[in-house]
């Protein structure tokens, strides 16, 4: 029973990280049909933003306030990644709408440059971010199973992001415009919505969430210039499995991959587990080729 709870928690924890990484992709890929391979590098930027916030706190703030740097690091990571996303959209992505495969290659190039830039600025070795003291330790449940606070914090952060995303997309004016543009660009433009502005905002928000994901990843281990590349392909798999256009699909996809991954890795080993998950995904796509949740449409492509 304890083992079961532990495995369940591990699965949930992996799912939450995957979800946080994939959430930004679900927006840029699911809504805008842009394959942003530089998403991993935006995660890396978020992580380094957290690292810089920590260093600033060490240098300029009294030591007793240090533990609260993380509270500030989340919005800072979001903000920096948001701005970089905005620049990226204005400088490159907007020329690539309607050419998803080309956007994949171009953003891969951008990712390569950003990675090398990070290596030049921060050095190739990984740097450690000291997590705040209030996240050390864990909660003991069911007599002996330890649930680390860091993992619980990440789960809470994901839920907060999801709620914020939901409110933004489905309950705000900006979000309504966004959905309108994604559903029918010409009609939305005719009704007076500035589609350029909406595109820029949407891409920047997707990037900003990548920044938050990077901030969360600093809790789990040291960070380096190639941090994002470990997560990017898994995150794309989440989007493919979950289907595009609805948040709930992404949630289902992340939970599915996270849970099955933990389960298979427990039964076999790490490398065989991944193979089994991949086989399961391909098998699942036989049944539902466009993922868990598909937008109903009459258009052909």
């Amino acid at each position, binding site marked *: 029973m304890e083992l079961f709870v532990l495995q369940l928690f591990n699965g949930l924890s992996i799912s939450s990280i995957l979800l946080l990484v994939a959430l930004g992709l679900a927006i840029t890929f699911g809504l805008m049909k842009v394959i942003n391979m530089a998403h991993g590098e935006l995660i890396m930027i978020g992580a380094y933003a957290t690292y810089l916030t920590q260093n600033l706190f060490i240098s300029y703030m009294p030591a007793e306030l240090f533990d609260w740097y993380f509270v500030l690091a989340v919005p800072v990571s979001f903000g920096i990644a948001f701005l970089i996303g905005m620049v990226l959209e204005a400088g490159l992505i907007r020329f690539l709408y309607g050419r998803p495969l080309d956007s994949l*290659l171009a953003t891969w*190039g951008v990712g*390569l440059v950003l990675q090398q830039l990070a290596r030049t600025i921060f050095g190739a070795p990984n740097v450690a971010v000291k997590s705040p003291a209030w996240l050390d330790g864990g909660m003991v449940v069911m007599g002996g199973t330890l649930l680390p606070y860091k993992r619980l914090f990440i789960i809470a952060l994901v839920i907060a992001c999801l709620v914020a995303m939901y409110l933004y997309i489905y309950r705000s004016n900006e979000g309504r415009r966004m959905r309108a543009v994604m559903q029918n660009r010409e009609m939305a433009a005719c009704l007076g919505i500035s589609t350029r502005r909406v595109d820029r905002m949407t891409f920047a928000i997707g990037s900003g969430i990548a920044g938050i994901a990077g901030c969360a990843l600093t809790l789990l281990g040291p960070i380096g210039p190639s941090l994002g590349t470990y997560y990017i392909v898994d995150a794309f798999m989440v989007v493919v499995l979950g289907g595009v256009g609805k948040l709930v699909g992404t949630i289902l996809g992340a939970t599915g991959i996270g849970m099955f991954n933990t389960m298979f890795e427990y039964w076999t080993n790490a490398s065989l587990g991944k193979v089994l998950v991949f086989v399961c995904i391909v098998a699942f796509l036989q049944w539902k080729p466009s993922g868990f949740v598909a937008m109903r449409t009459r258009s052909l492509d």
Partner: protein
Amino acid sequence: MAWRQWTPRQWWILGGYAVATAVLFAAPLFVSDFRLNLLAKFLAFAIVALGLDLIWGYTGILSLGHGIFFGLGAYAMAMYLKLEASGGKLPDFMSWSGLKELPLFWKLFEPFGAAVALGLLIPALLALGLGFFTFRNRIRGVYFTILTQALVIIVTTLLVGQQAFTGGTNGVTGYSTLLGYSLASPDTKRVLYWVTAAALLGVFLFCRFLTGSRFGKVLRAIRDGENRVRFIGYNPALYQTVIFTVSAGIAGLAGMLFVLHVGIISPSMLGIVPSIEMVLWVAIGGRGTLIGAALGAILMNWAKSEFSTAYPEGWLFFMGALFVIVVVFLPKGVAGLFQSPPPWLNPGKLLDRVRNGGSGTRGGPLLRLLRKKDNGKSIQSVRRQAE
């Protein structure tokens, strides 16, 4: 006779191919042994690029998994070479990992013919499996691309994880002979170079035949309008699966030749980054033209070997920038420049435009001013043509 009606341009192209082939086969006469070995490696890469071009340039399906097909071919040849070098004993890395006897599937690679056949068949069958299950369900475009990338990740983790059977991160290395001939001797290397050059020529002609045939026409039709092809009554999934399989087999062939020249294969040579680099070669050379893809692979690798050791950091910046520039400004690659050169690259046409006012609406204010006085005439001539 068809050749009697050839235009001078076609004769020039034929002459160019003849010269290129002659240079390719005569290279050992005037190139040092070290450079020859490098060139041979680049030729192997050019073969993958041709395979990749078949599926990306001609069918419009981007595969980021060709590193794996290349690598599986390479591993097949490496296993054969390793068994020959071990001379009936257990390969060294297996005894380090505590294996007592040769795993059953390694025995398949003991005869040379079987190893070569498997080097072609394993990548082709893997591609057939993935292609069948995805194209059948009309999973295509970016979804397919992401699946191929996931395939890369799982194959590399599998190769790294199963150290006792695959040599893990170190890969398979330490060969001595091929069919009894020493791999280290310059004579063997020269012969292997010619074999690779012949393979490149053979694959090139095969791809040319394929793309020029009816089959190739359907492939291009699928690229340009898959649904129309379906409505006409073709089954695109069948064509896509076949070409993906062929393309993977070609990559496997290239991998086998690569191992013979380089003498090592490890998971780092077939991961995500090498796979996407292969795509870059095709993109730069020109997708949809065979010669562009092959030359792109050779030139990019030549540039990489020249610059990446001297400026490792600068090289990565350069490569990243190249991805962006090629996609945004040269979607058809360098070969596209020759097919339809943009006006700023063709002085004759530019001059012509200035004199005659051109026919398009493009051009700066000066051009437009110069064009203005002929406007009436050119519209009339356009009308005449339309009638």
